[in-house]
């Protein structure tokens, strides 16, 4: 019933508080694609949705069940992908993602789920081009 103090970087706290891009995609033009990955035993389930239009991810949203780092990473990636040309997008490196939001090493397993979901999204996006 007790434990280590919660320690989150300001970036994680900020993303977690706002959860930008969380929930449904705003309506708009283009083809909707998604990518999902889940590992309940590891504590993460992430789904990205995006609208592909004119070779770009015109919009990108996420849904997630997981710890604050998972949610923050998903929110950050959704933002980072928005408006980018699909051809330029590569799945994130887990370590870079961890570095970006200052996640501890113990959370890498969960961030992998985020990256897996992103990979699935990118594959789907490339398929509809």
């Amino acid at each position, binding site marked *: *019933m*007790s*434990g*280590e103090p*919660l320690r*989150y970087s300001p970036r994680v*706290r900020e993303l*977690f508080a706002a*959860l930008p891009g*969380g*929930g449904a995609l705003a309506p708009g033009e283009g083809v909707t694609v998604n990518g*999902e990955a*889940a590992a*309940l035993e590891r*504590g993460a*389930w*992430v*789904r990205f949705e995006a609208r592909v239009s004119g070779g770009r991810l015109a919009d990108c949203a*996420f*849904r*997630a*069940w*997981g*710890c*604050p780092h*998972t*949610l923050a990473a998903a929110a950050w990636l959704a933002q980072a992908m928005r408006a980018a040309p699909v051809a330029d997008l590569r799945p994130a490196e887990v370590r870079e993602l961890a570095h970006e939001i200052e996640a*501890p090493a*113990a*959370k890498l397993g969960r961030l992998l789920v985020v990256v897996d979901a992103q990979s699935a999204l990118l594959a789907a996006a490339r398929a509809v081009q």
Partner: protein
Amino acid sequence: MNRAGPIYLDWAATAPLDRRVADAMCACLADPAAQANPSSGHASGRAAAALVARARGEVAALIGAPAESIVFTSGATESVNLAILGTARASPREHRHVVCSRVEHRAVTGACRQLEREVFEVSWLSPAAGGAIEPAAVAAALRPDTALVTLMQVNNETGALTDIAAVAKLCRERSVPLHVDAAQSAGKLPIDVAVDDGIALLSFCAHKLGGPKGIGALYQRRQPRPALQPLMSGGSHEAGLRPGTLATPQIVGFGAACRIARESLATEPARIRALRERLWQALQPAAPLWRNGVAEPSAPGILNAGFAGVEGESLLLALDGEVDVASGAACHSAVAEPSDVLRALGRSDLAIQASLRFSLGSGTTEAEVDRAAGLVVAAVRRLRSVLPAGALERVA
């Protein structure tokens, strides 16, 4: 707690120090006549010893015990270890069996596991569906070679209440020493060791009932008196059971807290139980949700609730700085360790992760309960608003 700070609903972890106790302790800390070592024979030592003696009487009175049956320790953890390790190690060679349960505090399960590493065999009782231990389960576990039964009265995670009177009767009949971990019940529910005289040993501490942290008591019945092997050496303090210079101001604070708790026993449990049910009602808009453990019989101040589709660490961060609550899991590392107690109730790891323990105490108000419930409902809804489809049903 600070009105401007978070709403404190973690009274089962520790109660804020009662203002009257703080006053009594500060007076003692500053009193020139209270400074000597209570074991010193000189005039100043005797003055300190008199303060200790008075407080010992107040602590004893809370549980209906005579003053000389109280051994002061550093807390419930030490009391529990002294009771369990001390009784088992002092028991006759042919008594090598201990009865315990799967829902005890880690101080108890840890001490019993230590006994398993020595020469003892431990029967680990499982709780009934509501979280309490059935007296019948104890009866079935007793053996001719049972050296000790150790059970908690109130579970610190679920509030489940075990019928200690019935267990005490059983143990009395079978002449088996019973140790009760009363850390969560002393001062919160009436306890009378004179009536339930099957209780041979009873552990509690000050900080759960409005007293200072770092001081506890072990009640040791006089007749028959359970043999105890001390954990430490160092002097003849506390009838040879617990050496070390007595901490007068701590003991004075413990005494004051017990006196206050005793005076409030007639009214506080009902008030706090009503607040808890108000909280449970106010949380309903966060449905689907469930209760871990039965509503009754239970300790008044504990509500353990789970929220479907919610991840525990995120829920805690969402409430961070607004409501102080305990998680259903201990986040010792990145991967939270699900509570053994909730596991013993048959909850899945995901359901445990999605659970919070709300605990209320003497300072809790209706306004706090209402505000806290509102904050929890909002946090749960926000987290659910970004759940992937199907997650609400799948996780927990």
